[in-house]
């Protein structure tokens, strides 16, 4: 189970991921009637959706539509009140977060949850360590340690090599967002949840982000929460609209863009 | 009583077990014991005494722990100087009773004096480090070291006993049969009047606190603050005043408990840590920040200690500890604590 997802840089372990994919037919992620109550308030209610392996899905919706809560339920940051969550066919509804991660699920956080007191290299190293053996090792890693090599490749992949040994707290905002993505790509991800990765980025940084996302190997599926319709529609092949904690519409980007209800609700009718 | 109904529907097995235990205990207390049982458990009088001592000790623990849990619940401040306030209250109470001869007078005096000390602590020290829970806790440890040595300096190492007034001294007959005479007449149990009075007072104080918390405006605010401090801040209440009031009240309660403890048992250096630890265990078991939790925790710990003392003296402390460990293992937030 755990041992199946061995660390690798992005896509390098494709065969392993495909092998896993062939073992578990069906959807990469499947939610059935997922509800999360905070007291009497339903942050999300009765969310049912399924994402195919390798599919790239955008989740749109206004603030408070329940998008981040949905992510938190999927990754196990907290348990849903009811409903089931399946990852590659396996019911993970009651798994702790780390067990889900070891099955190939990854996420980024909207507000960067990074280790500010550590260097970029150590942050990425931790991410690679988390999905490898030797988490409890009391031996210091040698520079030839494969995990350090993988961490360096990841840092390269998100264009942070120049600041490799800088403390994360002194990185620019855009660099911190890129590091968030690097952390989510460690090991052999099979499905990634991106929580507003483009928020607050400059146009250049956005373009870089789109490059990174579209450049991901085909077998890695993801869900991206994005406010910027243009970004969302460029990196996603299907769209789920959420409203007031419920799934409101699903379809291709074109269908959603041209849907009247959606336009009224979300685009304010001003788009197209 | 909606929660009770909820509990019985959600945990039918536990409900049955608890009911059986309660009925069994009631039978043990009220029915005359058959000789076979006396062979196993010893004289009924001894058993009854252990139960009553457990309940009254629980009442004392409740008095100490209620202030502790209230302060913790609202301010997230583990006041490890709580035991020192208890002992200080006891010593001052002793002084008041010695000099005036009025037992009851000691209560308002101590409540005010120790309460004001609590106000000062909150206003001068803890307010400055709000949100720094660990630091506040460390400060209370420092305070308890200093207070303990100051009290040792002033009152010395001997032990003091606060004498109860005449109208509370002596035994009292209870409508509980302790044994049957050979001619079949029942012998009723007698028990120190002062302990029963303290039990009664603890119940009244507990109910009053529960009522005040659940029915008064201030109480609602405090409960809102326990659940969510932002609500309290947003409601326009001067949160500092609420903190002050709660801390002062909690300290005052600890002081009063000191008089009770001094009447009940005795006062000497070291009692401060003993009662601090009792409060800790009580709130860990009952649930931190919950008054009914403190009551249940105090009752369980008091009973476990006294029954253990009678039937397995070497291991009575272990019982207390085991209860705590089991609660922690299966319900880390305590029996009545809110899910965190």
């Amino acid at each position, binding site marked *: 189970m755990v041992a199946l997802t061995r660390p690798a840089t992005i896509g390098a372990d494709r065969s392993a991921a495909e092998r896993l994919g062939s073992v578990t037919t069906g959807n990469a992620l499947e939610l059935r009637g997922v509800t999360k109550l905070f007291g009497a308030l339903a942050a999300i209610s009765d969310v049912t959706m399924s994402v195919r392996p390798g599919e790239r899905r955008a989740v749109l919706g206004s603030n408070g539509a329940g998008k981040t809560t949905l992510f938190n339920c999927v*990754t*196990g*940051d907290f348990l849903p009140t009811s409903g089931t969550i399946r990852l590659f066919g396996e019911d993970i509804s009651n798994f*702790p977060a*780390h067990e889900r*991660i*070891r099955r190939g699920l990854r*996420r980024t*956080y909207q507000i960067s*949850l*990074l280790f*500010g*007191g550590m*260097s970029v*290299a*150590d942050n990425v190293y*931790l991410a690679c*360590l*988390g*999905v490898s053996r030797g*988490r*409890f*090792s009391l*031996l*210091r*890693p040698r*520079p030839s340690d494969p995990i*350090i090599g993988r961490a360096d490749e990841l840092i390269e992949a998100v264009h942070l090599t120049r600041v490799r040994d800088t*403390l994360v707290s002194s990185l620019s905002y855009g660099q911190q967002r890129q590091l968030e993505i690097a*952390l989510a790509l*460690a090991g052999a991800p099979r499905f990634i949840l991106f929580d507003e990765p483009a928020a607050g980025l400059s146009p250049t940084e956005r373009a870089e982000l789109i490059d990174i996302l579209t450049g991901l190997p085909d077998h890695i599926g993801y869900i991206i929460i994005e406010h910027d319709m243009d970004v969302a529609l460029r990196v996603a092949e299907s769209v789920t609209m959420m409203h007031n904690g419920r799934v409101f519409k699903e379809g291709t980007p074109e269908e959603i863009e041209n849907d009247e209800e959606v336009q009224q609700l979300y685009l304010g009718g001003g788009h197209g | 009583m909606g929660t009770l109904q909820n509990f019985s529907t959600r945990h039918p097995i536990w409900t049955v077990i608890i009911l059986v235990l309660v009925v069994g205990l009631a039978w043990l207390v009220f029915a005359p014991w058959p000789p076979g049982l006396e062979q196993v458990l010893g004289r009924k009088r001894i058993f009854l005494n252990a139960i009553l001592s457990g309940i009254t000790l629980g009442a004392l623990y409740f008095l100490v722990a209620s202030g502790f849990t209230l302060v913790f619940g609202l301010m*997230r401040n583990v006041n490890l100087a709580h035991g020192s306030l208890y002992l200080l209250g006891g010593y001052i109470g002793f002084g008041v009773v010695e000099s005036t001869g009025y037992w009851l007078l000691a209560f308002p005096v101590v409540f005010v004096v120790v309460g004001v000390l609590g106000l000062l602590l909150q206003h001068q020290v803890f307010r400055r480090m709000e949100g720094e*829970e*660990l*630091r506040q*806790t*460390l*400060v209370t*440890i*420092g305070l*308890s*070291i200093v207070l*303990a040595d*100051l009290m040792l*300096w002033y009152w010395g190492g001997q032990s003091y006993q606060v004498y109860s007034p005449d109208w509370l001294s002596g035994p009292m007959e209870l409508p509980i049969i302790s044994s049957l005479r050979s001619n079949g007449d029942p012998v009723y149990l007698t028990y120190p009047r002062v302990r029963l009075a303290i039990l009664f007072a603890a119940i009244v104080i507990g109910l009053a606190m529960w009522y005040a918390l659940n029915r008064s405006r201030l109480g609602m605010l405090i409960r809102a603050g326990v659940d969510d401090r932002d609500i309290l801040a947003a409601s326009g209440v001067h949160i500092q005043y609420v903190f002050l009031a709660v801390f002062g009240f909690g300290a005052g309660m600890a002081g009063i408990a000191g008089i009770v403890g001094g009447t009940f048992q005795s006062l000497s250096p070291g009692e401060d*840590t003993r009662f601090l*630890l009792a409060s*800790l265990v009580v709130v*860990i078991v009952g649930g*931190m920040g919950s008054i009914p939790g403190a009551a249940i925790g105090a009752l369980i710990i008091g009973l476990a200690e006294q029954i253990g003392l009678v039937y397995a003296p*070497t*291991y009575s*402390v*272990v019982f207390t*500890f085991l209860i*705590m*460990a089991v609660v*922690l*293992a299966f319900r*880390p937030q305590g029996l009545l604590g809110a899910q965190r």
Partner: protein
Amino acid sequence: MAQALPTTAPGRLTTALERIPAPVWVIAFLLLLMPAFANNFVLYQIFGWSFILGMIALSLMVLAGYGGMVSLAQMTVAALAGYVVAILGTSGVPQISLGWPWWIHIPLAILIATLFGTLVGALAVRTEGIYTIMITLAIAAAFFYFTRQNYVIFNGYTGFNNVIPPALFGVEWRQPVPFYYLTLGCATLSYLAVVWMARTPFGLALQGVRDNPRRMGALGFHVTAHRIFAYTFASVIAAVGGILLVWQSAQVVPGTAGIPQVIDILVVAVVGGLRRPIGPFIGALIYAVLSVFSSDILHAFGMSGERFKLVIGLGFLAFVLFSPDGVLGLWEKYKARRAASPDPLLGGGR
């Protein structure tokens, strides 16, 4: 706390030695040559005791500084190791002590105390932050009362006396000079072990758990397991310290881990500084000097010599209130102030 992992070729021993700054060499030589100019009392009562206290406080520092968990049960772990040595080895209570040889009872003592410490950790990590303090304090108290009441194993109130180290290699280890070197060696080893640990994958992950447990879970780390293993690691150090402590005083009694002693370890660690492994040793030295000379110091201020606890309590309060990072924090502030030499017009300022 930047713990950069090695990037360049592994430092050879010589380069590693060259990297040690000069003051460390000076202190190391001073410590090694101490028996040449210090009398037996200073060696045994001040330095020996400081090293031992420092080790036990170091185990708290590992948990608090790297793991963010303030455990008050480390003194209890130490005392348990001492008890096991007394029970399995030899003591002045032959009816209980089994008299097993040192190569069985010492490893067993460390093992049993470590298991106990791990168990305490497993219970304590079920809650967080200040709850940990409450729970570990309650566990420490339970141990104290239990050892005081239990006569079958722990010999109750009297405990064990005459617990002395085995005369290994023909050395009387309780003689001041051998004992000084024994404690110095153990303290140095534990210090180095902690410094080493902080930069291993486990140490790095532990600091990650301290800073951001939620993120660590989302990176695939079993947060609880890391915390519990930190207790295991820390308990080994505490256990060794406990054995030395029992040898130093030749006895182990319930009061070895009474509530005041448990709190003292916290005081030592906080006063020294919880951020670096050297802090607890500084705190321990201050504590030992103060407690040995307290009556003289107090008399100098015209007070009765019994008010040692008052001094300790007030000193602890002062540190918690004004310099939460302890002596090390003060030292760093002083260095920072010197580095940023104050503007003559604006003054030192804050």
